[in-house]
């Protein structure tokens, strides 16, 4: 019976039937007809109210004709990350080099997002992005980006690649710099908290290696995995940094 009542056409018919009964002057049925009209009328009004509450939206998009974007959830947040980091997480050369996240170690991404929140790694843009992320969201985003595998963005000077490969595989013994491959893996895909470097943006790698002391581990006394890179970044000369960055930026 309640299923029938939910049909607006049936409701209309019942209202009309009740109205006809009242008009026909049937005494005994007048009060019953009136009760029916009142009941149907209230039922309609209640439904109308509930429907209007459910479907009223106060959101960021206020024009009616616009397609409404997904407002919640990992999918919407992923799209937001991809707005800057590229449709497949391959990175982007904005005003600031925006790093590749595709294929990155999940522990590394999670650690960096926490580092932005805690300001171990000061970065205004990423601090704003990260401070609204729950731990569950952070884990989900990291897992999502891990699964992407686009081609590297490229664009680095090619003549330095050979020298960079040598530094990556053998280090710079004279400067006491260990081989990068020892921790980052022979294919530079990283492991755990050690990041993947393969396919990373050339200007981003150069920026990080030349600014390590100013960008990482900025809370004194707070243990930070980034400290392990500090002597490496310090000892590499600028040409060596550019060479190894160029090499890594082309690795698949």
């Amino acid at each position, binding site marked *: 019976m309640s299923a029938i009542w939910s049909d607006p056409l049936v409701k209309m018919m019942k209202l009309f039937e009740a109205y006809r009964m009242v008009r026909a002057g049937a005494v005994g049925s007048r009060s019953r007809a009136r009760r029916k009209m009142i009941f149907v009328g209230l039922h309609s009004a209640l439904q109308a109210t509930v429907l209007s509450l459910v479907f009223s939206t106060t959101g960021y998009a*206020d024009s009616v004709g616009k397609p409404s974007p997904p407002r919640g959830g990992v999918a919407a947040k992923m799209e937001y990350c991809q*707005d800057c980091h590229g449709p497949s997480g391959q990175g982007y050369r904005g005003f600031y080099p925006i790093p590749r996240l595709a294929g990155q170690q999940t522990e590394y991404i999670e650690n960096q997002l926490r580092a932005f929140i805690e300001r171990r790694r000061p970065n205004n843009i990423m601090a704003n992005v990260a401070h609204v992320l729950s731990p569950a969201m952070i884990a989900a985003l990291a897992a999502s980006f891990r699964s992407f595998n686009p081609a590297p963005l490229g664009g680095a000077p090619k003549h330095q690649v050979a020298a960079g490969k040598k530094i990556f595989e053998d280090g710079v013994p004279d400067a006491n710099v260990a081989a990068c491959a020892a921790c980052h893996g022979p294919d530079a895909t990283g492991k755990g908290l050690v990041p993947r470097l393969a396919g990373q943006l050339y200007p981003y790698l150069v920026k990080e290696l030349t600014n390590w002391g100013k960008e990482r581990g900025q809370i004194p006394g707070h243990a930070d995995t980034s400290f392990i890179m500090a002597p490496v970044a310090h000892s590499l000369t600028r040409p060596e940094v550019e060479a190894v960055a160029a090499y890594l930026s082309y690795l698949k």
Partner: protein
Amino acid sequence: MRYIPLKTAALAIVCIAASALMAHAESLAIRNCTWCHGASAQGYTPAPRLAGQRVPYMQNQLISFRAHTRDNPFSKQYMWGAARSLSPRAVRDLTLYFASLAPDPANDGDRELTSTGRTIYQQGLPDANIAACVACHGPNAEGVAEIPRLGGLAYTYLKRRLQQWGEGYHATARAPMPRIASKLSRDQIEELASYLSFIK
């Protein structure tokens, strides 16, 4: 009517014509652009300022107009025809010339909205999944490479462009802007456009 000696009149006409022809940097090709974009390329509604704009950005737009990718109404009405017969050489020369001009800010936004606009530009709206414009467009909205300078562009132009992406119009194929701009509300668009119009 006063009598003007014929020779004087002829001399005057020749002088004026010569000075017009010798006007510095006002070649025919550039005048084709400045008819609409303003004598000093600072923009003239609805045509945006070209002075100080990024070379790769302007080149991409001219290619986009010729390929009919950029399809909003004013582009279709004016720029599709304007870009059709430009040779690659002309594209290069024109864009280099306009990029070399010093840009003047339009200063025509709503001053009361600029501080909110600055917040959106510099910090984004992480709760609304709106990226901070500064990441790509730079701290002074100056742009880089194919990413345009936004600082000082006219309020109405910026507002219209941001709205048009939300309405489904297209720009160059790889631009992330359509999705980003689609998330902005009308108020946020006005705030951003106001803030940007005052940047030197």
